[in-house]
């Protein structure tokens, strides 16, 4: 694998340029993780010391420098304000250093796979505390001062979803009902335009036997209403079959208690509800979009094709949620 060998050499040079001693990079291997980025794990050797790192890099020809820059701003600020996660060692939005925009960070131990977190005996104790810890972590993300968010953008959430829906070009009455109801019931604009993780859910966090170790996957970070993150976390799709409303493994009381401990106030549950509904609509449109990527020929994949029929699960949930309000 000559490409991997070149990457290993480049990573060793990059670590030394950041002031970290490194004789050699070993165990470089790609991780699967189903995202739009390549993810690599590797170990840096310095004498008898071994340190593990993670590289996330845009695929060749799919450079997204803005996204990488946003993620670097967020990761740096979040880490400074006590959100558990990796330390950002270096990053670039250019193509000159490691071929394409990348983020190089320390490795954090923990499990991300939702089905294991929900069912394996070794995470039983973690499940007891995770709801509260997710609340605390979300509140820490949202408490990052606005002065540290320069360069992060904000979009109208409903318009952004509508834009993607129109791009796919499917016409679905249930989704139109949801668009209308969300527009009619829109909560007052929150005063604070907080740091919003944008994909805060089980599957994007790491957990060990004692609880939360890292908040990952900041690709969709932006500024906006902080309660977006709590609503998204409570969308049914992110319960992975688990019985409880928060990620399948925690109660609202756990989540809101943890949030209140850090934020000093309990989140407005009416606003969380609105974002839960919006999150369900958003996921429906993402399912349509994924299928569209296959059928339009952008990326042919049986997995993307199959996601198309998952829209119906979201439509079912939207009708259920709308019926309760």
């Amino acid at each position: 694998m000559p490409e991997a060998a070149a990457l290993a050499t480049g990573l060793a040079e990059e670590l030394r340029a950041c002031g970290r001693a490194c004789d050699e990079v070993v165990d470089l291997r790609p991780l699967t993780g189903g995202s739009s980025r390549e993810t690599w794990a590797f170990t840096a050797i310095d004498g008898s010391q071994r340190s593990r790192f993670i590289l996330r890099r845009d695929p060749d020809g799919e450079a997204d420098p803005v996204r990488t820059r946003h993620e670097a701003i967020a990761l740096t600020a979040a880490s400074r304000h006590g959100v558990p996660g990796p330390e950002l060692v270096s990053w670039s939005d250019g193509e000159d250093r490691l071929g394409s925009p990348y983020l190089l960070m320390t490795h954090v131990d923990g499990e991300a796979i939702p089905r294991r977190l929900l069912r394996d005996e070794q995470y039983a104790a973690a499940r007891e505390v995770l709801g509260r810890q997710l609340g605390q972590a979300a509140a820490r993300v949202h408490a990052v001062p606005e002065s540290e968010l320069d360069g992060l953008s904000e979009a109208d959430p409903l318009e952004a979803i509508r834009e993607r829906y129109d791009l796919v070009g499917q016409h679905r009455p249930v989704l139109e009902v949801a668009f209308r109801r969300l527009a009619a019931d829109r909560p007052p604009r929150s005063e604070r335009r907080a740091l919003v993780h944008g994909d805060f859910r089980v599957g994007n966090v790491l957990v060990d036997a004692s609880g939360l170790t890292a908040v990952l996957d900041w690709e969709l970070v932006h500024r906006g209403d902080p309660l977006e993150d709590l609503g998204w976390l409570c969308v049914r799709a992110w319960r992975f079959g688990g019985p409880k409303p928060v990620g399948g493994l925690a109660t609202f009381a756990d989540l809101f208690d943890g949030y209140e401990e850090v934020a000093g106030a309990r989140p407005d549950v009416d606003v969380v509800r609105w974002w839960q509904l919006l999150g369900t609509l958003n996921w429906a449109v993402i399912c349509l979009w994924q299928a569209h990527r296959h059928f339009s020929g952008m990326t042919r994949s049986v997995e993307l094709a199959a996601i198309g029929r998952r829209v119906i699960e979201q439509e079912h949930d939207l009708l259920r949620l709308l019926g309760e309000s």
Partner: protein
Amino acid sequence: MNSLHRYPSAAEAVEAVREFLRSDAADSAYYARVAAHLLGIVERELAADRGDAWLAERLAVLGVDDEDVLAAQVRDGDWDDRYDELVAVLSEITDERLRVANPRHLAPVADDDPRRS
């Protein structure tokens, strides 16, 4: 357009599986499970009693003969005053689609309304 199970259609789903079986990904256990799942949907669709004619009947209850037209009407607010009538029919159609796409998702869920926490 009036297609009960529409996107992707059974033919599109089968095409995606066929393409997968001939691709480099064919030896992946993960993608094989996804392909089997997709064929399971097609299998249920082929066995189902209700089809496009049933959808047309349900739409006729609302006085429309095309689902795209209905979507446009909802978008324009034409159904705001007859919301309950609309949602009753949409629920029937959605449940029928779900019986094919993922019948397990029809199981009742525990209360997940944060306003009742």
